[in-house]
């Protein structure tokens, strides 16, 4: 059984999706989704443990040896990302039950959970596969299900947001598949490890740099790197609360993983950073993302939107780390994948609680919430502290490594800009805190604390974001090992 975990991690949630659809009852569909998410958490943790003790796991699907068949290949990098995705899934799903009941009409709930499971298995499928075309297939599953879930947001504008995302996402996916096609033409293989071996022989050709370009643009579109982020703010703002929490913590992270996988494992550090000078593009873009998007967030008055812009800025941190091309930098990027998932998940879930009781996340509607929904707002403050990067939160750990990576290369300017970014986070978080704690509420509206079924999952993430900030030795160790693995080029 346990040797099949790499496949089962993906296909168990996948088969539960049609089961959820067939059950056609909200409760049964939820049960399926719940089972799928927790299974994924169990499987991914088991896999990470195995990878840490035994090294790379390769699973030949159908018994066909790679590169003739499709291979699932788990190393520290993607096992770590899979754990991140599965953790968020497992925390969001109990939250979704209560939240979705309010925000989505009952007749659509079974299909909602079907889409949720599809998205989860799509993301996990991308993460664990060792085959580039397979990446594209699962990317489509996760993207299509994401589009449909976003469209269910209770604001009409969710539809336009979805449409934007659909167009941009499809362009991104097309670019990725063009890149994959070009690579296949030049090497005759789709297996990642095999590609890495065969690519160096044909790199002088024009085709491979073009393939690289298409993949870069496609993936950065999917991960919403500035200035290709335009789809993200609306999508996050208008999606149902549970969907935003899940997506914000997983979808872009998996794309960041893809970036790492393609640049380091497949093309190799020397090609990506030496020949293509990728860092010359990524570093300025991520810095602009950090500063400009934080600035936009400061002036936002819809808190979900504010957090969405903050997400674009935080993605900038991840890409910035990668753009250093050093062990420390990539460690910072990987750590921030996990850390940001925890804190942003918590923040969006807190906003879901507000949405549940207040029906809006406009800043003006949040006056005095600190007293009326003390636990919800305390969770928001907890997540916010992490976003700012206060010590003993996960955000600090990320920053610690990121600034270290910058200073290691003597790049004190970048180190300073990173700090300015986190101070800007202070401004926009404090803005919300001030309204919630120091402004008098409308006395005639009665607002109660959010139900426990929403609060507990939210607080699980808040506590996790402190836990892994206080004892980051495990996560940091895994991330460092993974970064070393990536920079060695092998997988």
């Amino acid at each position, binding site marked *: 059984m346990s040797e099949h975990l790499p496949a089962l991690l993906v*296909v168990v949630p996948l088969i539960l999706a049609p089961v959820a659809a067939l059950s056609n009852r909200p409760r049964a569909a939820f049960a399926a989704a719940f089972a799928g998410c927790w299974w994924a958490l169990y499987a991914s943790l088991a896999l990470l443990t195995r990878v840490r003790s035994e090294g790379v796991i390769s699973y*030949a699907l159908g*018994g066909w040896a790679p590169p003739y068949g499709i291979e699932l290949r788990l190393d520290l990098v993607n096992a770590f990302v899979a754990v991140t995705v599965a953790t968020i899934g497992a925390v969001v799903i109990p939250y979704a039950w209560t939240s979705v009941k309010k925000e989505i009409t009952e007749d659509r709930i079974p299909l909602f959970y079907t889409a949720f499971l599809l998205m989860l298995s799509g993301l996990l499928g991308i993460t664990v596969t060792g085959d580039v075309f397979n990446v594209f297939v699962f990317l489509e599953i996760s993207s299509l299900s994401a589009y449909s879930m976003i469209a269910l947001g209770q604001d009409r504008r969710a539809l336009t947001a979805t449409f934007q995302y659909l167009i941009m996402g499809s362009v991104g996916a097309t670019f990725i598949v063009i890149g994959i096609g070009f690579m296949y033409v030049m090497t005759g293989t789709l297996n990642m490890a095999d590609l890495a071996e065969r690519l160096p022989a044909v790199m002088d050709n024009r085709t491979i740099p073009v393939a690289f370009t298409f993949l870069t643009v496609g993936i950065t579109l999917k991960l919403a790197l500035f200035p290709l982020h335009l789809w993200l703010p609306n999508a996050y703002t208008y999606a149902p609360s549970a969907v935003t929490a899940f997506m914000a913590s997983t979808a872009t992270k998996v794309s960041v993983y893809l970036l790492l996988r393609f640049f380091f494992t497949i093309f190799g550090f020397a090609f990506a950073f030496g020949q293509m000078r990728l860092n010359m593009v990524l570093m300025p873009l991520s810095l602009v993302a950090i500063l400009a998007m934080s600035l936009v967030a400061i002036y936002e008055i819809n808190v979900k939107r504010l957090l969405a812009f903050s997400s674009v800025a935080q993605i900038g941190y991840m890409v910035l780390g990668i753009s250093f091309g050093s062990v420390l930098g990539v460690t910072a990027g990987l750590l921030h994948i996990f850390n940001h998932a925890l804190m942003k998940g918590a923040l969006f879930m807190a906003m879901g609680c507000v949405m549940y009781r207040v029906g809006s996340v406009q800043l003006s509607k949040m006056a005095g919430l600190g007293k009326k929904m003390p636990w919800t707002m305390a969770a928001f403050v907890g997540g916010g502290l992490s976003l700012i990067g206060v010590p003993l939160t996960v955000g600090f750990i990320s920053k610690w490594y990121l600034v270290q990576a910058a200073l290691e290369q003597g790049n004190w300017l970048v180190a300073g800009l990173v700090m300015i970014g986190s101070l800007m986070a202070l401004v926009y978080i404090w803005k919300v805190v001030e309204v919630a704690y120091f402004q008098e509420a409308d006395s005639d509206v009665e607002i109660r604390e959010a139900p426990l079924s929403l609060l507990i999952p939210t607080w699980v993430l808040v506590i996790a974001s402190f836990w892994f900030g206080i004892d980051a030795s495990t996560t940091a160790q895994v991330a460092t090992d993974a970064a070393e693995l990536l920079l060695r080029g092998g997988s």
Partner: protein
Amino acid sequence: MDDRVILRVGAKILIPFIMIFGLYVHFHGDYGPGGGFQAGVIFAAAFVLYALIFGLGNAIQVLPPKAAYICAAMGVVIYLGVGFLGIILGGQFMDYSVLAYSYTGQHYGIIGVELGVVTTVFGVMVALFYAFAGRRRVDS
């Protein structure tokens, strides 16, 4: 409706052939172009043609939307079921060689997954058609 006699008669003749062709495409997939994907679409085309000519109401009586929807989901279950069978019988996921001796196992496996594909594609295409055709026009 009377002025559509030619269409109706033509369709009545055509539809069985379309379906037979679909079966041919499906089962001949091992030898020539074709397979579950194309066959599913061709089957769906038969129903769509029926619905276009004899009206949505009649089509729904022949194949209720729910049935199409169940087909769509069941196909995925069948496909993955074949995959799980590989594990249960002691092989890898999607391993056909353990289903039966030697290449016979491959045959069973391929038939199984193709069945899954044809079911899903057929169900999805019909369900999509119902979803679009069943909607009323929204004018503003």
